[in-house]
């Protein structure tokens, strides 16, 4: 017995060692092919696994390296739902929206243009009617035609089920008519143009012939396994740490946009960002959209590629805003808030906490892609920059003085000020940033300490309004400044603020301005500028929250297998990202532009 046990053990150990010996196989070489026929020892066979780059022998069990795009950084958790209507963190299965399900339009934030996708064109025929013409020859991946009826069906799901996120649109949408197979007519009463046009590239169109007759629960929360859509890729398989997509050879868009080069896309969820970094450097991962702190150094040395060859290396993706809880003292005092804005050392956040991977935000909070809506005159007059002396001076002028001699100011009524700035634990970049916020505020005499509760506890404080001040960046890149201002000035103030205005700043004038902006047609750029100028004026004089920096669209890639990635210096400038919700912002175009290395 004992002998058998030991023998078994040694066999296992030996087997593992043999495996180890041929495990990493650093550089794929064609010599291996000749070995394949020699013997049937396991040694050789494992080598086949590692040699997937050899085009002549693509084993059926693995994805050929030269036809496969490996990406990471998009998935927050294991794939669990392919329901394109699942909101927020539930959209774990990145690619469902974009690869599988498509939109009427895409939007290119770099050029600021709507790109007709399923639609050929869309026009406002009068202020309450919007006509969409679909492209002809659209098909679902099962071969059925995609028609106006599918578009009507999808939008009407929102009317039927209040639990779908776009349901509130039906407050001003009065009807949809499928005029013929390729024409859809939307009619409105008092439309929120900004939201509607934003939804044009955010509501995924689903096939009526497969969705009709599903129960409410299947539509609202169902997993929608084996999804059938109209997009360039189809579902292949998934596991805890990966999603695999295979190209739709019959995609309608091949003729319009071109055929994406990668046959397979393997979307990896790496166990840590360092693993992703190692894989990119080795060329085993083509693009990583993880935040990797030291990437500037690696980009300078040419180990990885980034959008900009020098700082800030990354495009800006969203604005990190410091929300101040205006229901608490002293954050209810605009003068205190203003002084705080001057006290925060944003240059150190950019240069130290982020090692130059981000840019300081414009005080208006708008991303560079929307800078035409920034009224620079207002910002110059009312904006803020890091200036400790100025902060001290503003504090003193507002009556905040150090009366007990502990080095920190007290409120004008003599009350001690002890505040906390928070972010979720484990978000290392933000943790470094709030440390900078706390130290620089202390230098100006404001007693702020950094604290990092668990994500769950942080979220409860955020939405319940019990925090002092905290970071948030939940406004996605958008075609309209309304998206950001809708986050910052969400109203009415409720017991739980689930999606904006976490500091509960109550100001009817501002709420009216944002509501007014929502009702300006997208074509009326002058009107929008006028509205955003007023918003910025009020925001910067009251300073209810402080935009600090732009979080980057983390993206670093290797050109060992795929080339023609978007760069500032080249012609094709699209977003190099796989994040959920960014495929329709030019991510797909990036994919279509890729070329195999060596061509």
């Amino acid at each position, binding site marked *: 017995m004992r002998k058998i*046990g030991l023998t078994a053990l040694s066999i296992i150990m030996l087997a593992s060692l043999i495996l180890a010996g041929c495990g990493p196989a650093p550089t794929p070489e064609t010599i291996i092919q000749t070995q394949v026929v020699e013997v049937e020892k396991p040694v050789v066979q494992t080598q*086949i696994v590692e040699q997937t780059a050899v085009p002549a022998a693509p084993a059926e069990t693995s994805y050929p390296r030269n036809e496969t795009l490996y990406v990471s950084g998009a998935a927050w958790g294991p794939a669990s739902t392919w329901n394109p209507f699942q*909101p927020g963190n539930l959209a774990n299965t990145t690619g469902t929206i974009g690869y599988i399900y498509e939109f009427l339009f895409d939007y290119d934030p770099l050029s600021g243009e709507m790109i007709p996708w399923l639609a050929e064109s869309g026009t406002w025929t009068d202020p309450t009617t919007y006509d969409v013409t679909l492209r002809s020859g659209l098909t679902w991946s099962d071969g059925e035609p995609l028609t106006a009826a599918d578009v009507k069906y999808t939008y009407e799901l929102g009317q039927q089920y209040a639990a779908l996120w776009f349901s509130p649109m039906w407050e001003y949408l009065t009807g949809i008519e499928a005029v013929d197979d390729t024409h859809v007519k939307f009619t409105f009463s008092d439309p929120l143009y900004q939201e509607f046009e934003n939804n044009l590239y955010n509501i995924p169109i689903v096939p009526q012939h497969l969705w009709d007759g599903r129960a409410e629960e299947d539509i609202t929360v169902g997993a929608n396994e084996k999804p059938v859509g109209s997009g360039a890729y189809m579902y292949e398989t998934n596991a805890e740490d990966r999603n695999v997509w295979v190209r739709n050879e019959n995609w309608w868009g091949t003729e319009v946009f071109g055929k994406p080069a990668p046959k397979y896309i393997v979307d990896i969820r790496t166990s840590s960002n360092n693993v992703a970094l190692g894989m990119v450097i080795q060329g085993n991962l083509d693009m990583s959209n993880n935040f990797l702190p030291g990437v500037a150094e690696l980009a300078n040395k040419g180990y990885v590629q980034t959008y900009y060859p020098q700082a800030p290396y990354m495009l800006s993706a969203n604005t990190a805003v410091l929300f101040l809880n205006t229901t608490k003292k002293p954050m209810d005092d605009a003068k205190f808030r203003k002084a705080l804005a001057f006290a925060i050392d944003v240059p150190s956040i950019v240069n130290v906490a982020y090692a130059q991977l981000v840019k300081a935000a414009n005080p208006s909070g708008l991303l560079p892609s929307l800078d035409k809506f920034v009224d620079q005159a207002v910002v110059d007059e009312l904006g803020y920059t890091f200036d400790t002396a100025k902060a001290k001076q503003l504090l003193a002028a507002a009556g905040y003085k150090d009366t007990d001699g502990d080095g920190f100011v007290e409120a004008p009524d003599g009350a001690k000020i002890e505040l906390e700035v928070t972010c979720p634990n484990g978000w290392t970049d933000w943790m470094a940033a709030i440390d900078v916020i706390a130290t620089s505020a202390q230098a100006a005499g404001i007693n702020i300490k950094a604290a990092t509760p668990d*994500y769950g506890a942080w979220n409860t404080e955020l*939405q319940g309004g019990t925090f002092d001040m905290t970071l948030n960046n939940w406004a996605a890149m958008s075609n309209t400044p309304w998206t950001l201002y809708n986050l910052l000035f969400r109203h009415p103030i409720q017991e*739980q603020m689930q999606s904006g205005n976490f500091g509960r700043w109550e100001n009817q004038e501002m709420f009216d301005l944002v509501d007014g902006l929502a009702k300006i047609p997208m074509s009326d750029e002058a009107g929008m500028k006028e509205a955003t100028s007023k918003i910025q004026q009020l925001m910067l004089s009251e300073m209810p929250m402080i935009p600090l920096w732009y979080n980057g669209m983390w993206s670093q890639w290797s050109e060992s297998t795929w080339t023609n990635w978007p760069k500032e210096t080249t012609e094709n400038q699209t977003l190099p990202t796989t994040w959920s919700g960014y495929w329709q912002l030019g991510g797909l175009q990036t994919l279509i532009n890729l070329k195999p290395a060596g061509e």
Partner: protein
Amino acid sequence: MRRYIGRKILIYGLTFFLAVSIDWLIPRFMPGDPIANMLARASVNSTAAQVMHEYYTHVFGLDLPIWQQYLNFWNSLFHGDLGRSVYMFPTPVVDVLSRAVPYDMFLLLPSILLSWYAGNHFGAFAARSKWLDNTVSPIGYILTATPYMWLGIVLAWFFGIVLDQFPIAGAYSFSLRPNLSWPFILDVLHHWFLPFASLFLVGFGGWAIGMRNMIIYELEADYSRYLEALGAPKNLIRKYAFQNGILPQITGLALQLGVIVAGALVTEVVFSYPGIGYLLLAAIQNQDYFLIQGCFLFIIIGVLLANFIIDIAYVIVDPRTRRGMTGESA
């Protein structure tokens, strides 16, 4: 015998009830709202956010009074329904677990059984030689005192990074589809080896030390001396000593099971091995009540069942217990 087993079953039943109740209760003490976390980042307008929050709370049955939730929990538990995972919504927890459990079995069974078997025999063997005893005992002590997680990190660093011979994360390569073929099986074993080795080594050290001490003690016992005086062959004496020495090791195995399972959980986290431990970490981070319950339920059932089997095995292995029981029931 029947009375013994009956009593054991009663105790195990009670333990199960209490453990599962605590398992249900603990996650609900966590601060935070899982539904809010789940829906966070959905930048929808406030009316939609409110409606969706209520809708999802209802889907999870979290809008019911707490006692009702508790009763529903037991009710659905007996129907084999552990609810839906929040983290991997809308997958049922049973499905999530059934995908993870094979990995745990694959890791735990070989490491527990092999380390126990090999450790005991090696310990008995080491006790015989002064040279081995002097070199191996200290190593054994170090190994058994090593936290699983730390050893895991050291192995990953040495074999994975320095020697670059073993993958340090995942269950199989990203370039493979699961299938029954040699490359895939070998790849799976390749990924399995390091987590297995860290569990095996810690266990091995502990059992070897335990057995070595037992053997030395047994060889000093009166019956060994008597056998020796009678001129019995050394091998026979050692055989008896081993058979006596193994008994406390069986009890030890029962006592250690919980620790080993906990060790496997952290080891899985270190190696991103997709078993229960890895799942549990994600579940806790996402306040996934149902998945946390499910993971612990699996651990509770596993440990209780294994203990029960060891209890029964003990009766079979040790004739004295059997005799004691018949005497008791007579």
